[in-house]
């Protein structure tokens, strides 16, 4: 008898380890994006449509989207007025942004990318502090630990492993919290997206990754980014559930995130959510979107506008009268005016601070360079004073 025969290799059954370790079926996303607004009860699917108890949430989402749209307009205007170095607008994606900001509990953490300033503002952060990076006076204008919002991340998807690590640490400490990390469709091609999701699933970290699929990575459409059935399907390969949601339906995004975050908090592990949305504006104020897409395409998406969807729902339910709508618009104007006024105040970041936080203590070399800069500033000050005297 040969060794192979001893091991039973002639028997035509695969070895025990060949079977999937996890049943993939429950992890698969729905065939169509989950919707909640403008959907009859019967069509709303398993998550169900908003009951009457959600009226307050609907109104909060509505107000936040109105405010958010105005915020985006104002921020874009600030680039033209030279008050922001650059602004990547989230117009068209307000449902995702606002739902992300509102769905979190106080102890939860948010990991935004550079297009997600509105999510941070919706969470309650001061917009002037949030825009500090894009104004260019600092790399991060708010207290990340205090606010539980990580610094806006520029290198794509690199914040995802941070989110997973923080969630893992919280779980090891037995703390009751969940982490929401935001990324775009382009970011899903990065290696860090893969590594973060793999770690999250292996560690069963309490983290939810929301992919805002807005159709473009600057100019490159999703079709050149991936051949996956959907971005939500990628979850299955990691052994976590993937959810597909209408990213312009603020209530649906809120529902899906809320459910996923609750599952994470209760030890159920991570979830990947793909929100299908559209970047109505160009990549940033410095981009020209007409080079890679047609006006017709943009118009199609305007017909599925996050604000219009909310407004229609509220009016159909008799929850929005003219008075309320006017009040919400006025609040948005006031906030925008305050933002404009505050952003038009000159800021003078302290050059000496360049050396303050590189290390916990300055190295001898940094002390020397700091002294050099101090001397240069003093000389500059003398010159300026001299010129003023003349």
């Amino acid at each position, binding site marked *: 008898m040969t060794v192979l025969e001893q091991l039973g290799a002639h028997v035509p059954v695969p070895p025990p380890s060949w079977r999937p370790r996890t049943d993939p079926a429950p992890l698969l996303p729905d065939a169509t994006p989950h919707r909640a607004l403008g959907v009859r009860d019967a069509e709303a699917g398993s998550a169900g449509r908003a009951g009457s108890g959600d009226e307050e949430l609907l109104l909060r989402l509505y107000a936040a989207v109105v405010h958010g749209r105005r915020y985006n307009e104002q921020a874009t205007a600030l680039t033209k007025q030279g008050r922001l170095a650059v602004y990547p607008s989230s117009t068209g994606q307000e449902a995702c942004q606002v739902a992300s900001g509102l769905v979190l509990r106080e102890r939860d953490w948010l990991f935004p990318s550079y297009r997600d300033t509105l999510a941070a503002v919706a969470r309650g952060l001061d917009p002037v502090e949030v825009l500090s990076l894009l104004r260019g006076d600092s790399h991060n204008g708010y207290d990340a630990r205090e606010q539980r919002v990580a610094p806006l991340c520029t290198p794509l998807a690199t914040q995802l492993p941070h989110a997973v*690590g923080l969630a893992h640490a919280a779980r090891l400490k037995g703390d009751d919290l969940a982490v929401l990390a935001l990324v775009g469709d382009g970011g899903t091609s990065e290696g860090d997206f893969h590594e973060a999701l793999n770690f999250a699933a292996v560690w069963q970290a309490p983290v939810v990754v929301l992919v805002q699929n807005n159709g473009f990575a600057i100019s490159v459409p999703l079709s050149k980014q991936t051949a996956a059935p959907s971005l939500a399907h990628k979850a299955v390969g990691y052994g976590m559930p993937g959810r597909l949601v209408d990213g312009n339906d603020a209530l649906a995004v809120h529902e899906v995130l809320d459910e996923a975050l609750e599952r994470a908090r209760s030890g159920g592990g991570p979830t990947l959510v793909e929100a299908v949305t559209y970047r109505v504006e160009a990549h940033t104020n410095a981009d020209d979107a007409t080079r890679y897409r047609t006006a017709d395409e943009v118009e199609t998406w305007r017909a599925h506008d996050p604000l219009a969807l909310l407004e229609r729902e509220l009016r159909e339910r008799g929850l929005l009268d003219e008075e309320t709508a006017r009040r919400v618009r006025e609040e948005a104007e006031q906030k925008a005016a305050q933002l404009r006024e505050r952003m038009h105040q000159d800021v003078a970041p302290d050059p000496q601070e360049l050396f303050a936080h590189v290390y916990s203590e300055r190295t001898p070399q940094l002390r020397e360079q700091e002294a050099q800069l101090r001397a240069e500033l003093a000389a500059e000050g003398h010159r300026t004073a001299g010129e003023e005297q003349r």
Partner: protein
Amino acid sequence: MSTAVRQQSASGGAAERKPATMGQALNRALADAMAEDPAVHLLGEDIGTLGGVFRVTDGLAERFGPDRCADTPLAEAGILGTAVGMAMYGLRPVVEMQFDAFALPAFEQLVSHVSRMRNRTRGGLPMPLTVRIPYGGGIGGVEHHSDSSEAYYAATPGLHVVTPATVADAYGLLRAAIASDDPVVFLEPKRLYWSKDGWDPEAPEPVPGIGAAVVRRPGRSATLIGYGPSVPVCLEAAEAAREDGAEGWDLEVVDLRSLVPFDEETVAASVRRTGRAVVVHESPGFGGPGGEIAARITERCFHHLEAPVLRVAGFDIPYPPPMLERHHLPGVDRVLDAVARLQWESTWVAPGGDGGGR
């Protein structure tokens, strides 16, 4: 290695202590740090059940549990990236990269986040994490197992870059790295893992902190400046020069211990005494730490110098196959050849010895 290192430590009072290896001292440093501070968490590939490919984490998973000494998925950017998040939440992660070239997938996390998180958050989110990287050659490792990548790390503001050459420093510097509130790239010289020295794990001798260089051997003729695996080479060269006798060179050896912060004072003080200096390292010479060190010595000691500062470094080639690595690594002969070229006769001598006047 290192009769000389032994002698040096022996003169520090370690004569009756049992010999311990650098690997054992590193293991003990990790264990003591974990026992003292529950925030210390180890992450890496094969560091749990196996105890690491160099056995530096041997027994730690058993003692502290698989959460504190965790085998991670095989993904270095993921390891370091999740460590960043853990540090943001108040833990003190210690990451092991299996070999230095395998640390390169984590380079973006190191440069774009680890090194600058404290700075971009104005001190709000410090990164008290340690990245242990076995580096250097001389162990017969095949391609990608013998790199010396310290030039990349030293060129990245926000990182401390530290490397021990002795058993006592392996323990003391690793404890200091883990205790530091700044990120520390802790480079472990692979070929010294099995080097032995008298060392008492129950009473580890205190060593100077991060940022302090040490004179390992006093001398008057010239200063040899090295770190990590090159320190024993420098000490051996100094012994050989003394025994040679003919030239009468009495060489001083400075062990940098820390590339960042760089201890200019100790280095400059030594070179001012001796008037001549040779910097020795394994990583390629072009763009390597030796150039920076030579420039700083020249800036600070110009009027004390009797000769240009010379460098003995790895050639500017990808790390060679193991059967050829002895030609690449700076050895005693090459160091002594450089010392011979320090213009003792006030004429320039090119490497190889036949240059004469140029």
